[in-house]
């Protein structure tokens, strides 16, 4: 299934070579965020609020400062006045006023675990001891956690200057509903009223965490002359630079951020939590300072993905054609405005279907939990759970095969997208046909099991990237880029450069350079890196080829237009000069050869996945076991097939975890009750079967090798695929996640 007919035209694209950073990562040599050491480095520690909502009357740090070995203490008062200011760099612009408060509370705490003070000391033990000496005078305020509670008339309002955006008239009262966004077309209510079949339901989800295994960590060094260096792992060191410099009000050029290896991010490492704090500590102490989060801090104070309450009605004609959708989704926003999941939730709700009449309204709802942050296809899995569950109900009610129902309604190339722009070379129908043809779909469902299917899309992204390609004197090739490698992208860049240049994969070495050594590159996120940074690498490689042809033309004394580049060799008639031969002579033909490319492409295309899931439900315990799972996805074209399959498998398992186990659980006092990997139960190896993958390749014509972006789509369909499988196994519709044993047990007993 994985071999497209046209693959043989490439030497390297689609193959599976060992990644360039592989040996360092299997031998323990690779340096990740918590591993970096600077000479003379101090150890930092952060004091965090025990209260979900409180005014800080005062912080007394005198005793901590007096402790032997303590070199610096900072609080919110050390932060420059944080006004509204937008900075780019991540997947959407960030308002520094709120980003600053995710690093350190300024006058008020809005969630349990928000930082209130930090210490740098000669050892970690001294720093921890100093935290205990800091006295914070809190005026505890009423708190609110759940979405519906935060919208209640008598709910405590978090911010007195946040008014609901997106309403026809500016409201007069501040609200926890920070934003409304809607898409309206046709008359959804009337269309549904006249439909042959309809389904109405309410679906709920809890916040979940990205769950990267590497804790946030950094070392910062801010010198007396105003110049600074930061060593950290992130999905984008240019975003770290922009936010840190913006918050601390210093020049971009004065902050050099070194990217360390990153141990997972999934969207969660596209912002700062520690870096500005470590910088302030370093400036006070005059030495480099390391800050590292504990796992409990990560759960309590870094961005989860929104929980949601979703009301949906879908209506279809007797032949299955969708006629109308009425949806209201409310997403957690967390403590501060700015979470943007509602946009993709509303825009992507039924974006993969033709729905002539739609009323889709979304609300971003603030409450006393950490501010939501991007998590793989941010905003899409939640709404997809509701939409694809409703589709499953419509298929059952109409007696139509669930894949056929989707094939009937799917959008096709040339049809208008949600934004009205015609869709390009999308492979939605191809993926559905491949799923239908897969032996999993036609195999009999085992007794006691249920089979679910769901599909989903993600728009993908382009965005700015810089890359340079330099030729070694011996003809070997150096690629320099600014996109952190979170899952094998160095290998993809090397493949694309080697394919373009016509050299062996092993001749190309890839470096991810610091912010002062390569031009701006947006974060590794949005499923953009292989697409956009790949384009930059290819363009820079083409620039090198032009120079190679020019050197050959000069050597031969011919017009460069008459020279071609074939399989790593300049050709003119029967004259040939290899890359290595030209490289060896650069000293006498015009000097070293290198080229840089800066791109900001917008011709990306969405990806689409279809997931098939078989589950077995233990009727005595309510435990759900995934027995078989298949991921079918239009991947554009796979550059490194292993890491494309890996994205499909990893995203699916994250989605299965969201469906079955994962949820933030708050106690009545507003404290997170499961801030650790024991109680926040992510999937482990024994929970999972093999995850079968089918890469459907419908290339993106706007990318030299057809890349679309593959990382985010695979977390979109699993929630409904699992929910539909359990619903079919039990005969009970799953409306609420997680589908945990206690919930299933209760539903089974109630149905008896």
């Amino acid at each position: 299934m994985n071999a497209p007919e046209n693959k043989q035209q490439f030497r390297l694209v689609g193959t599976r070579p060992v990644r360039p950073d592989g040996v360092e990562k299997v031998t323990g040599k690779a340096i990740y965020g918590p591993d970096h050491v600077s000479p003379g480095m101090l150890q930092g520690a952060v004091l965090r609020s025990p209260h979900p909502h409180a005014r800080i009357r005062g912080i007394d740090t005198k005793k901590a400062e007096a402790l032997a070995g303590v070199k610096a203490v900072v609080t919110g008062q050390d932060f420059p006045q944080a006004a509204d200011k937008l900075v780019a760099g991540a997947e959407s612009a960030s308002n520094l006023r709120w980003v600053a408060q995710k690093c350190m509370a300024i006058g008020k705490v809005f969630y349990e675990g928000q930082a209130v003070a930090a210490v740098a000391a000669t050892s970690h033990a001294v720093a921890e001891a100093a935290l205990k000496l800091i006295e914070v005078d809190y005026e505890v305020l009423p708190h609110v956690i759940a979405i519906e509670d935060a919208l209640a008339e008598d709910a405590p309002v978090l911010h007195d200057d946040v008014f609901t955006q997106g309403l026809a008239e500016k409201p007069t009262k501040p609200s926890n509903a920070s934003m409304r966004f809607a898409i309206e077309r046709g008359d959804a209510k009337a269309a549904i009223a006249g439909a042959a079949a309809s389904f109405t339901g309410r679906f709920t989800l809890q916040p979940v965490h990205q769950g990267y295994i590497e804790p946030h960590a950094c070392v910062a060094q801010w010198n007396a002359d105003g110049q600074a260096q930061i060593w950290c792992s992130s999905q984008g060191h240019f975003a770290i630079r922009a936010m840190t410099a913006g918050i601390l009000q210093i020049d971009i050029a004065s902050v050099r951020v070194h990217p360390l290896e990153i141990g997972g991010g999934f969207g969660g490492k596209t912002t700062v939590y520690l870096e500005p704090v470590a910088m302030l500590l370093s400036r006070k102490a005059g030495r480099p300072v390391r800050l590292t989060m504990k796992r409990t801090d990560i759960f309590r104070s870094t961005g989860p993905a929104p929980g949601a309450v979703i009301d949906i009605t879908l209506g279809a004609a007797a032949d299955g054609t969708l006629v109308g959708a009425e949806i209201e989704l409310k997403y957690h926003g967390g403590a501060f405005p700015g979470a943007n999941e509602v946009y993709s939730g509303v825009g992507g709700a039924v974006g993969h279907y033709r729905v002539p009449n739609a009323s889709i309204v979304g609300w971003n709802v603030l409450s006393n939990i950490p501010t939501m942050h991007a998590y793989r296809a941010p905003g899409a899995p939640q709404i997809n759970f509701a939409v694809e569950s409703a589709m499953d109900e419509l298929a059952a009610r109409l007696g139509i095969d669930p894949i056929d129902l989707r094939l009937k309604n799917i959008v096709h190339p040339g049809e208008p997208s949600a934004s009205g722009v015609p869709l390009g070379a999308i492979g939605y129908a191809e993926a559905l046909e491949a799923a239908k043809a897969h032996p999993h779909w036609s195999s009999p469902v085992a007794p006691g099991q249920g089979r679910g299917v769901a599909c989903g899309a993600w728009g993908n992204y382009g965005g700015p990237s810089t890359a340079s390609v330099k030729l070694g004197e011996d003809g070997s090739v150096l690629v320099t880029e600014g996109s952190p490698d979170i899952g094998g992208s160095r290998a993809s860049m090397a493949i694309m450069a080697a394919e373009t240049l016509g050299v062996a994969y092993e001749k190309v070495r890839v470096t991810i350079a610091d912010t002062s050594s390569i031009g701006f590159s947006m974060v590794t996120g949005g499923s953009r890196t292989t697409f956009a940074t790949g384009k930059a690498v290819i363009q820079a490689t083409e620039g090198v080829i032009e120079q190679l042809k020019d050197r050959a033309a000069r050597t031969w004394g011919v017009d460069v237009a008459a020279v071609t580049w074939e399989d790593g060799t300049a050709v003119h008639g029967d004259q040939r000069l290899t890359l290595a031969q030209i490289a060896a002579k650069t000293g006498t033909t015009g000097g070293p050869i290198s080229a840089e490319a800066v791109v900001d492409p917008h011709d990306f295309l969405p990806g689409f996945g279809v997931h098939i899931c078989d589950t077995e439900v233990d009727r005595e315990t309510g435990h759900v076991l995934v027995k078989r799972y298949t991921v079918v996805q239009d991947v554009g074209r796979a550059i490194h097939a292993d890491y494309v399959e890996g994205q499909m498998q990893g995203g699916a398992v994250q989605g299965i975890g969201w469906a079955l186990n994962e949820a933030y659980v708050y106690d009545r006092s507003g404290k997170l009750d499961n801030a650790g990997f024991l109680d926040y139960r992510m999937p482990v190896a024994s929970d999972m079967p093999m995850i079968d993958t089918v890469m459907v390749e419908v290339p993106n014509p706007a990318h030299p090798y057809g890349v679309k972006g593959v990382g985010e789509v695979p977390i979109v369909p699993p929630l409904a695929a699992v929910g539909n499988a359990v619903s079919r196994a039990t005969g009970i519709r799953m409306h609420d996640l997680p589908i945990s044993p206690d919930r299933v047990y209760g539903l089974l007993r109630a149905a008896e």
Partner: protein
Amino acid sequence: MSKLLVSTTVNGDPQQFLCDPDTSLLDALREEMDLTGSKEGCGSGDCGACTVVLDGKMVCSCLVLAPEAEGRQVSTIEGVAEGNQLHPIQRQFLEHGALQCGFCTPGFIVASKALLDHNPDPSETEVRYWLAGNLCRCTGYDKIVRAVMDAAAELRQDRRTAA
């Protein structure tokens, strides 16, 4: 509080270090011996990123006190390859693309080696349950399990060839 002097053996080499009585073996490895291949993902024994072998037994080094290493043998990820010769498990991880970010990989490799050292022919289910104490958030485990199964087969073949 004065420090304790601990004498131990790490990857076959004698090591001495000073630590506070409440220092974890993980922190001693990382901070005192510069062996940062063992990672801290949780500090509570739930993620397995710090997995090492202590006198032949697989442990989470974050749950072992550093002074407990006195007089004992510690094996870490840094000792899995022999010089520049990768262990078959390491090579199979690379050939399968069984790592994405790579942060959990040292723990998985140490745990997998501990499995294959005492069970050369594990079933898929045995591999999955043995590795259930190691969290990977990137891969969904599929390629990891395949890499370990293939490494087991390769090691069995090596043993047959040697015999």
